[in-house]
């Protein structure tokens, strides 16, 4: 009973401190909302509005309709060119990203026996988006040629094309990039709030000397840790509600799976991140160090979580490292539940990993947190 009272007065103090500090409140609620909005719109793997230029040396009816087929989609933005320019020069001078050269005689070859030739020159410096842009251009051209051949000679089409591949996209028929990114952002927000803020808040007590005052009290170290972490646990879960709500309202992403299951996983995951927060605070002397230290961990955790790039694309050694990154598993869980609506049984492996991870990390942090000063 008494120990509960002790805890309650501690939690009350934390909330009072938070309520007194408008900057902190902004950091807790406004910043995540802005982050979700900016990142939700900015972080996209889709490639749109790619600058494309055509050098049409054929000037035929067919070549014009090929060019037209590119103007019907928002993936491309056609940049006009003059005859005097050279294809590679356009890329060199940042005027265009992709150049398609249609040689003279293109239409004639399409009708005749020779195979028509097209040259696509693209700028590779953007890596990721260059690869996608390239794939789009090729897809666009292939589709065009299919339609063209089909309309000309249905019989030829069948013989040449051979196979018909029907593709169905499950869970995300429109291939919305948001659907993948937004749950990822929520996972990152949860990690930042719980880990970074708890580390900084403990480091602050250390820096100001109030921790010492707590250490001479008969309060058990478990009470101290619980009192310090409980507010951040509550706040992070609250933040998550806000984020999920915003995702629904602004990005039209509805939760496919069960809400309680998502909360259960989040609660389990928070033990790991809060444990890491304590661990960081025991290793630093000031708020600034806590900030840098946790920030450093954040970056590595995010990069190796599969947020931007799927873990399965990575080399074997790094996939091994990713296994020990709690964010990887939480990222999987939140995406599975939000997008696919997976249930607890389908996520049993992640449940086991997150449970044991939380147990180990939190336990270790508690042990390394000493009720003594250095």
């Amino acid at each position, binding site marked *: 009973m008494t120990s509960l009272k002790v805890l309650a007065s501690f939690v009350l103090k934390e909330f009072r401190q938070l309520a007194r500090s408008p900057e902190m409140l902004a950091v807790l609620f406004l910043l995540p909302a802005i982050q979700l909005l900016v990142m939700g719109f900015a972080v996209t793997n889709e490639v749109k509005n790619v600058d494309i230029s055509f050098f049409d040396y054929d000037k035929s009816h067919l070549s014009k309709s090929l060019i037209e087929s590119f103007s019907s989609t928002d993936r491309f933005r056609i940049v006009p060119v003059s005859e005097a320019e050279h294809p590679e020069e356009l890329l060199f001078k940042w005027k265009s990203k992709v150049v398609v050269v249609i040689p003279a005689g293109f239409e004639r070859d399409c009708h005749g026996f020779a195979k028509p030739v097209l040259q696509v020159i*693209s700028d590779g410096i953007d890596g*990721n988006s260059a690869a996608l842009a390239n794939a789009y251009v090729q897809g666009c051209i292939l589709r065009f040629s299919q339609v063209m051949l089909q309309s000309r000679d249905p019989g030829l089409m069948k013989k040449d094309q051979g196979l018909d591949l029907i593709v169905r996209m499950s869970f995300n028929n429109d291939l919305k990039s948001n659907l993948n990114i937004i749950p990822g952002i929520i996972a990152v927000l949860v990690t930042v709030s719980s880990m970074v803020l708890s580390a900084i808040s403990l480091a602050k007590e250390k820096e100001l000397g109030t921790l010492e005052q707590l250490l001479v009290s008969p309060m058990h170290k478990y009470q101290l840790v619980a009192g310090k972490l409980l507010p951040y646990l509550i706040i992070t879960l609250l933040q998550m509600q806000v984020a999920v709500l915003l995702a629904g309202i602004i990005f039209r992403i509805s939760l496919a799976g069960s809400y309680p299951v998502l909360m259960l996983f989040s609660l389990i995951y928070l033990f790991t991140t809060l444990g890491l927060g304590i661990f960081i605070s025991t290793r630093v002397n000031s708020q600034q160090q806590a900030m840098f230290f946790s920030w450093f961990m954040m970056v590595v955790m995010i990069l190796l979580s599969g947020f*931007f790039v799927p873990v399965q694309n990575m080399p074997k050694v790094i996939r091994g490292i990713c296994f020990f990154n709690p964010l990887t598993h939480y990222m999987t869980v939140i995406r599975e539940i939000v997008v696919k609506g997976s249930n607890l049984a389908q996520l049993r492996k992640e449940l086991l990993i997150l449970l044991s991870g939380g147990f180990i990390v939190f336990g270790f942090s508690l042990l390394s947190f000493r009720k003594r000063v250095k």
Partner: protein
Amino acid sequence: MPSPKRITAMASKELFHILRDPRTLAIIILMPVLQLIIFGYAMNLEIRRVPLLIDDQARNASSERLINAFSHTPYFQIVPANQRRLEPEELFKERRAQATLCIPVDFGSASQVLLLKIDASDPNSAQLIQSYAQGIIASGFPASLDLRPFILYNPDLKSSFFFVPGLVAMILVMICALLTSISISREKELGTLEQILVSPVSAMEILLGKVLPYIFLGLADALLILGVGMLLFQVPFRGDFLVFLGFTFLYVLCSLCLGLLVSTLAKTQQAAMMMALGITLLPTLLLSGYLFPIPSMPWLLQKLTYIIPARYYLQIIRGIMLKGNSISELYQAGISLGLMSIVMLIVAVKRFKLRLS
């Protein structure tokens, strides 16, 4: 007249601050190198080992040939058919497969239709899976068109080619804007700025002395990344090094002005840290075109990128390193950086004077 002696005194004091905090220093130096290695080795955008389940109902020579074609690429990993005969969606939820290919009973004779179902919860991968599958299926049959793709400047689309220049832009902003803004507000908070201000040191000397060590630290760090990137990942440097240094200096100047501006806006260290993070780091990461293409963003964010210094520097450094650009292609970006520096400096100095009086 700024005295070199006083500036040296300020600069060496600042240098001691940096050197006496080895943990922060280690993070500053290790962070980019670690990021570089992660980016270079782990951030592979090409999909690999996609677990593909093939439901072969035909079981004839044609279907065998097709399955062979799929299993002989690095992109797909054929998973054994399931006993429970789960629906593809259920399989995707169990994460036992990411795509399923259904070969109908009459494959090879009458019907030529194949059904490919893809788990599109990661739309990027889904799209790539689709194009790989189409490629594999098409490769066995004559194409109707001879498409000749050429990719310039980075023919293998190596990710390190664009991560290395991007990291240099990040590091410079991190050290020159973030660290300086924190270091100035720290002096304010500790009251040591007052102590310095009562001495005969001029405001100009204070600022110069404060920023000099960070300029050197930033440049050294940037060159370190450049060196590691060129050695480990064979990132080329096609342009003129002197032109590169000139533009880089301009960018450093712009970042310093930004840091100065933040420090005049923030009252405490903590606020400076938060603001620096919000104003310098995140925009550089998200809105500069480093990781995400600007043309794909919504209209408002696209306009916002015009006030992000890294946007211009990214064009400069990628242009010089990868394209071999020179001043004539990049002068516009350079002018933008210069203009932004001047505006920020004027605002910062005005606010600084306001606070002192």
